[in-house]
């Protein structure tokens, strides 16, 4: 009698320690080898796009905070850049500098969570807490500036909600000098650990052409060797004034575009962000941060698609204005939403444990996927 075999379907999530939120992955398995991954989304759908239809333009900003809650500052940034372009207003220099500083601090904070939780997915608990400790310093900086630690509503159309406090510059410099050695420590503790390399190198390889076809952006695309960064190549705000590199994956310990590359590109990106910060913090000009805020925000009829380099990739806002105070339609191109769609491609033929490693290396935030 022949033994009957059957494919095993394993539901990972929505309640699972390492799906980074309420994501359900339906895994089809043969033994422990994955043959297919079907992601099921929508457990965190909060109707962002429907809500915006009833809001005025400034009222949308608190809602953008809640999409990618680990990079709220950058969501604000993208939205205000889009609306300012639609309105055709120039913002003061000081505002631009403060926005860049906040944006880069947010990028570091977001990458710290990404790297920390990635370590956690692989099973290393301690780096996670070290990185969260460092993230607290950034959140403190945000808190003294705008009073909130997670959902800032800081960048306004044409300006900022608050000017930076008097000791912000000093504290940021202190943070930069404090933070540099901790990157080295992270590398020694986690990045170059043999077990960690074994777990992540040669796993979940994403070739560049697949990445482009799937629209992967951000660190994930750069880890595949494509030197593309919206900050440099489709510049916005004042990013063209700063001197920084775009780190790309080189296949250090395995193949180009594997999980280790995706992880390490983020580490390098934090260093580049520090470079931008060091340049920007010395050059903040004086000025009023609210002088350019329009009294009544009523953009002309038109459409605009603007993208910014969110820590997770290319964050695009597509805004259609019908000339009223409420946006007609706002569609968000959330980087995590697009990046997640490649999961099935990456996971085929790997083990269940690798699914966790791959999912962690893509670095998704469910708030943004489901919006």
């Amino acid at each position: 009698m022949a033994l009957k075999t059957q494919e095993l379907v394993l539901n990972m999530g929505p309640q699972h320690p390492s799906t980074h939120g309420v994501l359900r992955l339906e895994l089809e398995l043969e033994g422990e080898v994955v043959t297919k991954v079907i992601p099921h989304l929508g457990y965190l759908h909060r109707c962002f796009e429907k809500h915006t239809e009833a809001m005025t333009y400034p009222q949308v900003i608190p809602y953008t905070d809640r999409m990618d809650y680990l990079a709220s500052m950058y969501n604000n940034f993208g939205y205000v850049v889009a609306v300012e372009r639609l309105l055709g207003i120039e913002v003061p220099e000081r505002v631009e500098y403060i926005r860049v500083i906040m944006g880069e601090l947010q990028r570091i904070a977001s990458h710290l969570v990404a790297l920390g939780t990635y370590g956690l997915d692989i099973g290393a608990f301690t780096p996670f807490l070290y990185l969260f400790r460092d993230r607290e310093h950034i959140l403190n900086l945000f808190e003294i500036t705008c009073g909130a630690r997670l959902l800032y509503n800081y960048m306004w159309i044409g300006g900022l909600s608050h000017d930076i406090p008097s000791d912000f510059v000093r504290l940021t410099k202190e943070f930069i000098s404090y933070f540099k050695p901790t990157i080295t420590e992270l590398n020694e503790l986690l990045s170059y650990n043999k077990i960690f390399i074994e777990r992540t190198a040669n796993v979940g390889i994403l070739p560049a052409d697949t990445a482009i076809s799937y629209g992967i952006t951000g660190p994930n695309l750069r880890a595949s060797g494509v030197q593309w960064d919206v900050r440099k190549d489709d510049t916005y705000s004042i990013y063209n004034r700063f001197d920084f590199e775009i780190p790309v994956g080189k296949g250090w310990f395995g193949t180009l575009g594997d999980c280790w590359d995706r992880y390490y590109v983020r580490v390098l990106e934090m260093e580049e962000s520090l470079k931008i910060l060091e340049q920007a913090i010395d050059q903040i000009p004086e000025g009023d941060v609210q002088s350019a805020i329009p009294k009544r925000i009523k953009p002309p009829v038109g459409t605009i698609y603007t993208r910014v380099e969110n820590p997770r990739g290319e964050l695009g806002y597509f805004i259609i204005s019908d000339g009223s105070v409420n946006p007609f339609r706002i569609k968000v191109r959330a980087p995590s939403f697009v990046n997640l769609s490649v999961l099935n491609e990456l996971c085929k033929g790997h083990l269940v444990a690798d699914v966790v490693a791959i999912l962690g290396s893509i670095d998704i935030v469910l708030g943004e996927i489901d919006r």
Partner: protein
Amino acid sequence: MREYLKNTWLGIWTVLVGMKITFKHLFIPAVTIQYPDVKVPLPERVRNRLYVNMDDCIGCDQCARACPVNCITIETVKGLPTDDLGITSNGKKKALWVTKFDIDFAKCCYCQLCVFPCPTECIYMTDIYEFSEFKRNDLHYNFSTLSTDEGEEKKLNWEKFQAEKEAQKAAAAKQKAEKPAPEKKESTDKSKSAGE
């Protein structure tokens, strides 16, 4: 074979390096605190529970319109000309009874959008963040200094006043049609007495 030995060596060496780091951290003072006993001092701009200073509120409804989640409900009744509503701290005379000023903190998203448009700076964020409740309804705060009965009373007063005014107007119009000049003085006297 070389690869094999290298792997073995790297496996042991990187583990030892990691162990060195964690061991070092055993003797570094902790960064966490014992929360309810020790509290972090909050910065000046901190955004927590809203507070409304009703002495200054003129009931202009701007905060409620700025709110993206509609958590502020304001109802106002016009004060009678004779009522003394007091003046705000920046010297404006108040004209409305704020019969209802409710903030639902279960809805509030602490975005601070309501704070900026306020002309008298009477709504602001405080540093109180420990206000959790067992029931959702308990998060519904009433800021109005008037009780519901008083509010009803003010409303009735206003309606009465309005009705009388209408009546007077009608009467005045009638009288005007009949004999215009001398009655005017009388009617203003009447409205005053009605107000009292």
